[in-house]
């Protein structure tokens, strides 16, 4: 009985620590440039999402199918919810097996500033994706990414 309890406890601790292990990075006004600088000469994709946006959750489930073809460098996920939703965002990423990607969450008191830093022409709609080419010229896309779009991107 005790053994079973101990095993259960250890498993529970391991489970919770594995979720907690995938901490989201704090996304601030300079973060988008940081993300870009770290990927000098490489193409990558930034996907913005929210725990409060049902189409975004569908999008994450969709991206999950492609996770083996993405790397931490090529896929950046930014939750726009604010630090108080960090735990919820981590759980959703874990459930969708995307916790190993480069994950960020909006931080600070003024989300508008972060939205402006990413793209002053963005109305805030989600999901929103930016495709950066090797020269870091980017193309923005609002709405759920389709299979042909992802396939085309991944073949580049």
């Amino acid at each position, binding site marked *: 009985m005790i053994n079973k309890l101990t095993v259960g406890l250890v498993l529970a601790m391991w489970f919770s620590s594995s979720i907690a292990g995938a901490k989201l990075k704090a996304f601030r006004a300079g973060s988008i440039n940081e993300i870009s600088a770290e990927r000098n000469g490489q193409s990558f994709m930034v996907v913005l999402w*929210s725990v*409060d*946006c*049902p*189409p*975004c959750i*569908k999008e994450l489930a969709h991206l999950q199918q492609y996770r083996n073809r993405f790397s931490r460098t090529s896929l950046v996920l930014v939750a*726009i*919810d*604010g*630090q*108080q*939703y*960090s*735990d*919820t965002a981590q759980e959703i990423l874990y459930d969708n097996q995307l916790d190993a990607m480069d994950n960020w969450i909006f931080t600070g*008191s*003024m*989300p*508008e*500033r972060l*939205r*402006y830093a990413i793209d*002053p*022409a*963005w*109305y*805030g*709609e*989600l*999901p*929103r994706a930016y495709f950066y080419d090797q020269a870091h010229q980017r193309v923005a896309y*609002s*709405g*759920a990414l389709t299979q042909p779009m992802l396939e085309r991107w991944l073949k580049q």
Partner: protein
Amino acid sequence: MRILLLSCLALFSFGSSAASQSHDSHKETMGSLLEECLTPTALPSVHCGRTPTAVFGTNGDLYVVYSQHGHIYLTISSDQGKTYQIPSVVNRIPEVIYDDGENRPKIAPGKHNEVFVSWTHKTTGRYSGEVRFARSLNGGETFDTPMTFSSDNSLISNRFETMIVDQQGRIFLVWIDKRDREAAKKNNRSYAGASIYYAVSNDSGGSFQPSRKLADHSCECCRIALDIDNSDRVVALWRHVYPVNMRDHAISYVIPGSLPIETIPTRASDDGWQIDGCPHHGPDLSIDSKDQAHMVWFTQGEKNKGLMYGRFDFENKQTLLLRSIDDSPMAARPQVQVFDDKLYLMWKRFNGESMDLLLSRSDDEGQSWSTPEPIASTNNGSDHPDWVGTSQQLFASWHTQSEGLRLIPVIQ
């Protein structure tokens, strides 16, 4: 082939606390940045609390409700917001309260020294809550035990309540209800959006008549706007879900005792905003002396984008005038107010450095609008702005993290 835009707008208000109680520590960091508010033992105040909502009483005093530490507090100012009295507690038992910009406590004074307060309590589960109401019969000194407007199953969400008191003194509570959506789900039927329900009290909040449906298929998480016309009829404006997933607005009278067929909502905006998600961005409404409804809203439709103004005519049952107010991606939270037959419109716009509160005026019933002028600004997070006024004065009320609650004079 038409491309279905699957998108939803984020909740860009500062410090939404719709998360569970375990996130309190994070929530505090998103609260006020005023020094007096930073200690854990900070006393309740309009500046430290969240989503303060204000109204002038008939005696000229300013009544403000706000959320702090799981309580709704009421405080009174006799000098137009310069100083506030020690607050009274509306709900004695603390609870999780929806206190983001779109979901905030409401307050309405009665005719005989009553104060009515409503809010939404967050229940277990995501996106779920129940509407609460409490009244004071002694000018806000003490409040009766809160009433709850829950459906049969409290896990069914009733949220985004709004309240208005008509000239007769009847209290109207109107909210977004998911009971029809849940019923459809149980029968394996699909149901677009949620529904609008309302309840009316004829005895100064002593009791409410059973709740009734106003409309099927409202958007799930945008606030409802209410006003009263010159015949003492309550008018509601809300974001609706037109087929398929078209999130434009509907307008309707709220007539107690009427059947839903008698108050079929009329389409008030037609921007063609197709979106599989909720924008968290409800409209505002103000009715003039000719019973014209002046409406403002946010859209990202195929036809129009940004902040829009529309004038709805009840006789013709259509929006006869439409104007784009601000198509900047950073413009948000428009509020409209009729005052002395002129129209005042304010909204928030981030300018790249700080958040401005902009004001524009129309002297010709919405045909033309003045160049927007900033009336206030902030460098940190900010709540939705709101109008508060008497028959002689009009203020913009704006709660910001760095400055607390401000009453900005617009007409004095």
